[in-house]
C-alpha cells in the first residue's frame, strides 16, 4: 500500500498527533477509536458499544465492547480510555485532537467497561467528536512511540517495524476482536509523497494499492487491465472562501454574485474529469443534516452582473490567493478566472507556496480555497463558523451562533434537524463559501487484492485493510 506521508524528520508514530495520510492508515490499523465514521458520516461503534447522554447532554456514558484485548494480551478497560483522553488534553503534549469541550474534572471510570465523560456545554453528538482523526485509544501508561518502543494496540494489525518517512510493516494481530479478521498476514505501508510517483510505483508493480489518485491518472487507470479503482463514496469539498468581513465581500450582493459566476459543471468536467459531485455552497455533502433539498445553484453570469451593478461594483476586480496544495486546485483557480469574466469580474491569481496554505492562507486572505475534509456539521461549524471559532472567516452573526449552540445541544433529532436546516438556509443565501464541487479521489487496487471497501476520506473504511484479501 502506498500513501502520501511525511519526511523522516517530521514523521511521527504517536497517533494523537500524527496527521499525514500514511500515519492515518497506520493508526487505524494498529489502534482503534471508540467510534468511527461510516462513509455517510453516521457513527460506527468500534471499541465502544454504546454512547448514552444524560438528560441534557452534559454527561455521556461510554460503554466499552467486551472481550477486546490489546495485542500483548491485556484486556481493554476504562482505564485505557481515561488515560487516552487525559493524554490528548495534556497541555504539555499538544495533541491535535479537539476535545476542548471535555470537562476532565467530571470525567471518570464508573466500572471496568464504563466511562463517564463530562462536558462543559451540552452536546447532542459526542460521537462525531470522538470519531475525529486523532482520537485513538492507546494503552494505559504508553507515552513513548518510536521505532525502538513499538506500541501495542487493539487494531487488526500489530506494528512490526517503523521507519519514519519511509515505510512501516504491519503483521496480523491474532488477538483482534472481530472474529476471523484480518485476512492478510502482513501489510506494508510505503510513503510516497508525490501523487505521480505513487501512480508509477503502482504501475510498475512496486505496490499493490495506492491512495488519492489524481483525476487525470485515474481516468486512464480505469481502463487498465488488472487494475480496479475503489471510489470514494462522498467527495471532499473543493471550495472558494470569501471573507465576509472584508470589502468587497462584506456586501452580501457581491457574495451572491460571486456564487453565480462559477460554472460548477464545467469545473467537474474539465478539472476533475468527472471524479466529482456538484457542490451547492454548503459544507458537508453526505453528512447527517446536510441540506440536500435546497435548489442546485447554477452558472448565471447575467444575474451576477445585475447584482454587482446594484451593489455599485460593476467591473469588480478581486484577487484569489491560490496554491498547488491540493489536486486540481490551481486548475480550478484558472478556470474560475475565465468563467467569472462573463459576469464582468476580473479574478487576479496570486500564487503562493503550497506549504502551510491550509493553516496560514486559507480563510485568512479575502479570497482563498477551502478544502476541509469530511466531518460532521457540528464539528465544522464549531471550528469555522461561530463568531469566536479559531478558523472564523468573517461570518459573525450572534443570532446564527445562538441557534447553532442550541442545535448542537438539542437531543431531540427532529428539532435538531429543523435547526440545522435553518442554519444552512441562511448560509446558502448569504454565506461566504462557494462550494463548486466535492472531489472524489479514488484509490487504485491491483485486481489480485480483494475486499477493499469504498470509503470517504477520513471514514472508518478509508485505508481499512482488515477485510482485504489476496486472490490467486
Amino acid at each position, binding site marked *: 500500500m502506498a500513501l502520501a506521508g*511525511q*519526511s*523522516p*524528520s*517530521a*514523521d*511521527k508514530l504517536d497517533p494523537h*498527533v500524527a*496527521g*499525514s*495520510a500514511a500515519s*492515518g492508515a497506520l493508526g487505524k490499523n494498529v489502534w482503534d477509536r471508540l467510534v468511527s465514521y461510516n462513509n455517510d458520516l453516521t457513527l460506527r461503534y468500534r471499541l465502544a458499544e454504546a454512547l448514552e447522554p444524560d438528560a441534557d447532554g452534559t454527561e455521556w456514558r461510554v460503554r466499552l465492547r467486551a472481550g477486546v484485548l490489546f495485542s500483548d494480551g491485556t484486556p481493554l478497560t476504562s482505564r485505557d480510555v481515561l488515560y487516552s483522553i487525559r493524554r490528548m488534553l495534556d*497541555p504539555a503534549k*499538544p495533541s*491535535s485532537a479537539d476535545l476542548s469541550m471535555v470537562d476532565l474534572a467530571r470525567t471518570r471510570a464508573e466500572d471496568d467497561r464504563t466511562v463517564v465523560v463530562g462536558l462543559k456545554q451540552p452536546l447532542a453528538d459526542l460521537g462525531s467528536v470522538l470519531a475525529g*482523526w486523532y482520537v485513538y485509544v492507546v494503552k494505559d501508561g504508553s507515552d513513548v512511540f*518510536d521505532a525502538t518502543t513499538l506500541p501495542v494496540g487493539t487494531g487488526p494489525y500489530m506494528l512490526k517495524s517503523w*521507519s*519514519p*518517512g*519511509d*515505510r512501516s510493516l504491519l503483521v496480523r494481530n491474532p488477538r483482534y476482536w472481530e472474529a476471523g479478521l484480518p485476512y492478510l498476514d502482513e501489510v506494508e505501508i*510505503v510513503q*510516497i*509523497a*508525490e501523487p*505521480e*510517483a*505513487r501512480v*508509477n*510505483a503502482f*504501475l*510498475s508493480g*512496486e505496490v499493490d494499492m495506492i491512495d488519492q489518485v489524481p483525476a487525470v491518472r485515474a481516468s486512464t487507470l480505469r481502463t487498465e487491465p488488472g487494475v480496479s479503482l475503489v471510489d470514494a463514496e462522498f467527495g*471532499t469539498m473543493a471550495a472558494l472562501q470569501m471573507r465576509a468581513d472584508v470589502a468587497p465581500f462584506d456586501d452580501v450582493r457581491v457574495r451572491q454574485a460571486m456564487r453565480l459566476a462559477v460554472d460548477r459543471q464545467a469545473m467537474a468536467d474539465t478539472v476533475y474529469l468527472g471524479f466529482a459531485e456538484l457542490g451547492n455552497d454548503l459544507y458537508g455533502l453526505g453528512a447527517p443534516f446536510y441540506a440536500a433539498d435546497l435548489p442546485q445553484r447554477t452558472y448565471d453570469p447575467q444575474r451576477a452582473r445585475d447584482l454587482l451593478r446594484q451593489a455599485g461594483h460593476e467591473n469588480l476586480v478581486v484577487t484569489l490567493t491560490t496554491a498547488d496544495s491540493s489536486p486540481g486546485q490551481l486548475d480550478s483557480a484558472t478556470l474560475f478566472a475565465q468563467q467569472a469574466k462573463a459576469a464582468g469580474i476580473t479574478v487576479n491569481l496570486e500564487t503562493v*507556496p*503550497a*506549504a*502551510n496554505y*491550509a*493553516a*496560514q492562507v*486559507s*480563510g*485568512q486572505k479575502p479570497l482563498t480555497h*477551502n*478544502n*476541509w*475534509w469530511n*466531518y460532521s456539521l457540528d464539528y465544522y461549524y464549531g*471550528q*469555522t463558523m461561530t463568531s469566536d*471559532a*479559531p*478558523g472564523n472567516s468573517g461570518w459573525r452573526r450572534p443570532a446564527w451562533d445562538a441557534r447553532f449552540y442550541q442545535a448542537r445541544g438539542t437531543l431531540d433529532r427532529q428539532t435538531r434537524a429543523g435547526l440545522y436546516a435553518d442554519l444552512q438556509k441562511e448560509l446558502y443565501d448569504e454565506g461566504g463559501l462557494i462550494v463548486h464541487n466535492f472531489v472524489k479521489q479514488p484509490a487504485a487496487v491491483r485486481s489480485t487484492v480483494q475486499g477493499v471497501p469504498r470509503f470517504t*476520506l*477520513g471514514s472508518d473504511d478509508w485505508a481499512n485493510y482488515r477485510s482485504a484479501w489476496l486472490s490467486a
Partner: protein
Amino acid sequence: MTRYIVSRVTGAVLVLAVVTCLVFVLFELLPGDAAVTVLNRGGASGAIPPEQLAALRHELGLDRPAGERFLSWVGGLLSGDLGTSLLSGRPVGDVLASRIDNSLVLALVTVVVMLPVAVVLGLWAGMRVGGRADRGLSTAAVAIEAVPTFVVGVVLIAVVALGWRLLPAVSLVPVGTSPLRRPAVLVLPVVCLVAALAPHPIRIIRARAAELAAGEFVRTARSHGVGGVRLVSRHIAPSAVAAALQPMAGSVAGLVGGVAVVETVFAYPGLAQELIGAISQRDFPIVAAAAILIAGFGIAVYLAADLLALLLSPVARRAVLTGRR
C-alpha cells in the same frame, strides 16, 4: 604549494560560514514556522487556536529573538551537536544518516559514469570537427541539455519503465539497505542525471580538443610521426580535459540541483528530498545541516577539481607556484 592549499582550505571554511549565515537569514524570511506545521491539521483546513500556537512556540524555543537562536544553534554546531528536528524531536544526525548515503551513492555513480562519457565523446567529436559525426553529436548534446531534467525523467519512466517494463519506475530503497543492493533502481536516475550534466563538459572538451588539434604543437607532433591514440592521449587529452575540469566540477556541484529533481521524480529517498521536505515544514536544524552538507560537497568538488587541474596542466602549475595567480 602548501601555502596555496592552506589558503584554499581557509577560503572554503569562510564560504561555509557565509553559507551558514545565509541559510539562517533566508530561513527567517520564510513565512510560518515549525509550530504552525505541527499544529496544521493534516488534510483538513487551518484553524489553529492562538494559545496553543504560542505554547508550542515557547516549547520549541521559537519565541526567542533570532540572534539568540542563531548563536545557540552555532554553539551547538561547533561542539558537534547538530540539534534535533523541531517536528519529531529526533536527532538530526539519525534522520540524515541514511539519506546522505543514498544521495552519495547516486552522485558517485553518476560521476563515475559521466566522466568517461564526457571525455571520450568530447575528444572523439573534437578530433572530427565539422564532420557528420561531430555535427550529430554536438546537436544532440545541445538538444539534450535543453530538455529539463524532470522531463527526461518522466519520459524515461513512461518509455523504459512503464512501456518496455525493463526497469523500476520508482526507486524505492528501504531505509537501512544500500541502493547498491538493488542496482536496477539506480539506472534511470543516473541516466537522467548524466543526460543533464554531461553535455556541457562534452562541448568544452570538444572545443578545446579541436583548438589543440589545429594548433602549432600538434602539427609539430604529427610531423614527428606521432599520431592516432598516442597523439590524443599524450598531447591533446590532458590539456583538453584540464580545460573542462572547472565546467565538470560545475556539473558535479550542479548534481545537487539535478539530484533534487531526480529524487522527487523517482521517489528516491535522498538528502535533497529530505531538505525540500524540511524547508516546507520549517524544520530549521534539518535544513541547516542538509544545506551545509550540500554546500560542503560543492566546495570540496571545486577544490578537488582545482588541485587536479594543477596535476594535469603544467601551465596552471607554473602559474600557482610562481605566485602569478
